[in-house]
C-alpha cells in the first residue's frame, strides 16, 4: 500500500544508518536525538494533527519524564523496570491533571493554557535545588536494562530508540485509523456534529492528551539517557515551540511527517549552529517562511495524499 512506502523507507533508513557511514559517535548522537524528538513529535502530531489541539506545553511532558529519571537516580534507582513505568506514569498524570482543566477551553484559550502549564512545570523544575535547580542534574548512570548497562552502548541505544519509536508510531497510526481516531478527527472538524450523534468529545480528547503525555514521558526517559544530563530548559516553551515546528514541518496530519520534521529540525539546528553563534536569527525567519509558504510539509512533498 502506498501509504506505507515512506514510513518503511524512513525506518529502514534509520535502521541501516549506523552501517551506512553514520556509525561514529557524533552521527549516532544526532540520530538518537532525531528519534527521541521524533517520538515526542509523533505524540504531539496525534494531538495537533488528529484532534486539532495545539499544545504549546508539550515539552513539559518530556521534562516530567526526564526528571522522573533524575529523582529515581538521586535515590539510587536505575532499573528500567522501575524507571520506565514511573516516568511514563508521572508524565501521564501530569497530562491528565493539566489536560482535564485545559480541555474545558478551546482555540486560543487552550493554546495559552497549555503554555502556562508548561511554564509552571518549568518553574517547578528550576526551583528544585536538590535536583540541580537551574544548573541541571548529571545522572550517575544510565538506566539499567535487566541489570545490564545496555543503554551505554551507543549502537544498542540507537536500536532501543528505534524500536520504541517504531512502536509509538504504529500505535498512534492504528489509533488514528480506529474508532478512537475517527471521533477525534470528527470533533476536530465539527464538535457540534459529534455531540449531535451522541458522543461527547471531551473524554476522547482527554485520553489523546494523556497518551501524548505518556509518549512524551517515554521520550523524556530516553532524552535523559542520551545526554546523561537533565536541565529545566528541557521544559522551556522554546522547546515546546520547536516540537510544534517539527509537526508542522513534517506536514500536519502525518505521523511519519513528524519524524521527518524532527530529522529536518535536528539537521537544520546542527548546520546553522555551526554557521554562526546567532543561528536563531536565521532559524526564526526560516520558521516564519515555512509557515507562510510551506503548507503541505515534507510529507506532502514526498507522497501526494489521497485522503486525510
Amino acid at each position: 500500500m502506498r501509504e506505507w512506502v515512506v514510513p518503511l523507507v524512513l525506518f529502514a533508513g534509520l535502521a541501516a544508518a549506523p552501517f551506512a557511514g553514520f556509525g561514529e559517535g557524533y552521527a549516532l548522537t544526532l540520530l538518537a536525538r532525531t528519534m527521541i524528538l521524533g517520538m515526542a513529535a509523533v505524540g504531539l502530531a496525534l494531538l495537533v494533527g488528529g484532534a486539532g489541539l495545539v499544545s504549546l506545553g508539550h515539552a513539559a511532558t518530556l521534562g516530567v519524564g526526564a526528571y522522573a529519571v533524575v529523582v529515581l537516580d538521586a535515590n539510587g534507582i536505575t532499573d528500567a523496570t522501575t524507571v520506565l513505568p514511573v516516568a511514563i506514569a508521572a508524565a501521564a498524570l501530569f497530562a491528565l491533571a493539566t489536560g482535564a482543566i485545559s480541555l474545558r477551553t478551546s482555540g486560543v484559550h487552550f493554546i495559552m493554557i497549555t503554555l502556562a502549564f508548561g511554564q509552571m512545570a518549568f518553574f517547578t523544575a528550576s526551583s528544585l535545588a536538590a535536583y540541580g535547580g537551574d544548573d541541571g542534574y548529571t545522572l550517575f548512570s544510565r538506566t539499567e536494562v535487566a541489570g545490564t548497562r545496555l543503554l551505554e552502548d551507543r549502537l544498542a541505544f540507537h536500536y532501543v530508540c528505534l524500536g520504541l519509536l517504531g512502536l509509538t508510531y504504529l500505535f498512534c497510526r492504528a489509533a488514528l485509523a480506529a474508532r478512537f481516531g475517527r471521533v477525534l478527527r470528527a470533533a476536530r472538524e465539527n464538535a457540534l456534529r459529534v455531540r449531535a450523534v451522541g458522543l461527547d468529545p471531551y473524554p476522547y480528547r482527554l485520553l489523546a492528551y494523556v497518551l501524548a503525555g505518556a509518549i512524551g514521558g517515554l521520550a523524556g526517559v530516553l532524552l535523559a539517557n542520551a545526554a546523561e544530563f537533565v536541565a529545566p530548559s528541557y521544559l522551556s516553551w522554546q522547546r515546546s515551540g520547536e516540537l510544534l515546528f517539527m509537526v508542522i514541518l513534517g506536514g500536519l496530519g502525518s505521523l511519519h511527517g513528524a519524524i521527518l520534521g524532527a530529522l529536518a529540525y535536528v539537521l537544520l539546528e546542527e548546520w546553522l549552529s555551526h554557521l554562526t553563534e546567532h543561528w536563531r536569527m536565521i532559524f526564526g525567519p526560516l520558521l516564519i517562511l515555512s509557515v507562510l509558504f510551506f503548507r503541505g510539509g515534507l510529507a506532502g512533498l514526498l507522497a501526494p495524499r489521497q485522503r486525510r
Partner: protein
Amino acid sequence: MSPELLLVQALNGLQFGILLFLVAAGLTLVFGVMDFINLAHGVQYMLGAYFGASLAAATGSFWLGLLLALPAALLAGLVLEFLVFRHLYDRDHLAQVLATFGVILFLNEGVKLVWGAAPLQMPIPALLEGGVALMPGLQYPIYRLGIIGAGLATALLLWFLVDRTRAGMLVRAGATNPEMVSALGVDIRRLFTLVFGFGAMLAGFAGVMAAPILSVEPGMGDTPLILAFVVIVIGGIGPIRGAFVAALLVGLIDTLGRAAMPDLMRLFLAPSPARQAGAAIASMLVYILMAAFLAFRPAGLFPVRTG
C-alpha cells in the same frame, strides 16, 4: 510579615500589575479584534525597553529616551505587522503561533547581536529619584509610584478611547463581528493596523517604564508575555476592564505570594526546604489561580463574546 512590609509588597504588586496590564491590553485588543494570537507581543515590550535604554543613554535624558522610544516601538510593531503578521490573519492559530514564535527567536537573538548579551542599564530620572515616606520610617521609591500613576492614567485614557470615541466603538464592534464592520464600509485593514500599532506602543511603553527597575536583557519579554496570557484568561478576552482587574490581581498575587510563601512554609518545614518550597509554590500561584478560574469560570471575569 510586618504590616510595613505588607504595604510595600502590595504596592510592588500593584506596580507589577499595572505593567502587566499595559502588555495585556494590547494583546487582548489584538486578539479580540483580529482573532490573532501574537506570541511576539512580549518582544514589543522588550524592544521598548531596549529603545528606551539606548536612546536615554544617547541623549543623556530619561524623558527624551521615553519620548523617542514610543514612536520607535510603534514603528517596529508596524514593520513586523507589515512583514509577517498581516499574512497570518487568515491562517489558523497553529500557523500564527509558529510564525510569531519565529519572530521571538529572531528578535531575542537580534537584540543580542545589536546590544550584546549583557543587561543594559537605564538610570531613574532625577525627577523621580529617591523615596517618599508612606509611614514613619517607611520609604517607598517615587519611581515605582510614578509607574503606578502613569499606568492608571494610561488605563483611563484607554478606557476613554475604547468606550467613548468612534474609533473605539469600531474596535469594540470589530471584536464581536468583524465581517459586519467591514461590510459597513469601514476599512478593516486600517482598523487592524491601528489597533495593532496602538497595542505595540502600549507594550513598548511598559517596557521603557520597566527598564530602570528590571534588567534589560534578551528574552525579558517572555515571562511578561505568558503572564499576560494568564491575565487574559482570567479577565476574559476583549474588554479592557477585565484585563485591568485581572492584571492587578495577578500582579498582587504573584508579588505577595513570593514574599509570603517562604514564611508560610516555615510554619511547616525547616528554613532551607521552606525557602525552596516557598519559591516553587509562589511561582505556581498565578497558574493555580488561572486553573481555578478555568475550572469555575471559563469565560473570565467579564465575558463579552457570545459563542
